[in-house]
């Protein structure tokens, strides 16, 4: 684990290979079409990271803190190709948020996400209309295929 020391730069971009990730040739995957995403998470750190990750692939991304804010946004006419919703949101929880978004007719791909994988939570999310449920962190391995499908 970890890149070879000689090629690691501080704050780094590793010059080499090591992780065999999506950019071994230095080019980062980027979507061709205009794609939009919404991140719904009450944690600032997760919001910041998920937003930055999606944006790094060329996806126009917004982030809100609560399920209610997400519902309001969509009720006001905003549409998103992808919506990522944290499970344990304070008032309107993840599944409930997903349910309300679906009830408004949104066709977005909805990803339920949580710090701990829990089958019960997965079932709740899927029953509410989410397409998938994953454990954090939101990784390139998960997100790139999703973006690719949306893009094509």
């Amino acid at each position, binding site marked *: 684990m*970890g890149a070879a020391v000689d090629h690691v730069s501080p704050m780094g971009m*590793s010059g080499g290979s090591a992780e065999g990730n999506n950019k071994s040739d230095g080019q980062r995957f980027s979507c061709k079409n205009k794609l939009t995403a919404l991140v719904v998470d009450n*944690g600032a750190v997760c919001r910041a990271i998920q937003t930055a990750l999606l944006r790094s692939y060329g996806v126009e991304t917004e982030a809100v803190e609560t399920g209610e804010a997400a519902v309001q946004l969509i009720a006001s006419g905003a549409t998103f190709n992808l919506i990522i919703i944290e499970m344990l949101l304070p008032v309107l929880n993840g599944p409930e948020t997903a349910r309300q978004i679906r009830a408004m007719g949104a066709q977005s791909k909805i990803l339920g996400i949580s710090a701990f994988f829990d089958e019960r939570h997965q079932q709740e999310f899927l029953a509410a209309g989410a397409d998938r449920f994953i454990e954090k962190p939101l990784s390139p391995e998960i997100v790139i295929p999703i973006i690719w499908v949306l893009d094509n």
Partner: protein
Amino acid sequence: MERNQMRRQLALMRQSFFDQGFLDEQFIQLEELQDDANPNFVEEVVTLYYRDSSRLILNIDQALERNPLDFNKLDNYMHQFKGSSTSIGAKKVKAECTQFREYCKAGNSEGCMRTFQQLKKEYAILKRKLEAYFQQARQAGPLETACRSRN
């Protein structure tokens, strides 16, 4: 000359974080999100993490003083803590979060309290290491080679 020396040291420091299990590959994901548009992304996110987490730690400490413990509440706090710790690649902290949750689920007060003490230790150790790292990085100065460009 001296700068190169500093950079080498910095790279070794960084490598040790991975070798010693303090950080995992998720930290590398953060580094890869840093570019010309977000030149201080890693430090900013880590700073945000420490700011947010200190509040959570306080809440959990207070919750652990209750008798009996409200395991549901503790679980919710830990949920957020694990989420952010995982997202920055804080490997040891994340492991303690997982352990804590197991004790919550089992209703084991002693286990929770013990694990939380350990968690706080790991958290503090990582914080010191990362603070030193960012400070050294600032002294070593920015790299001349351009960051990967986004197109």
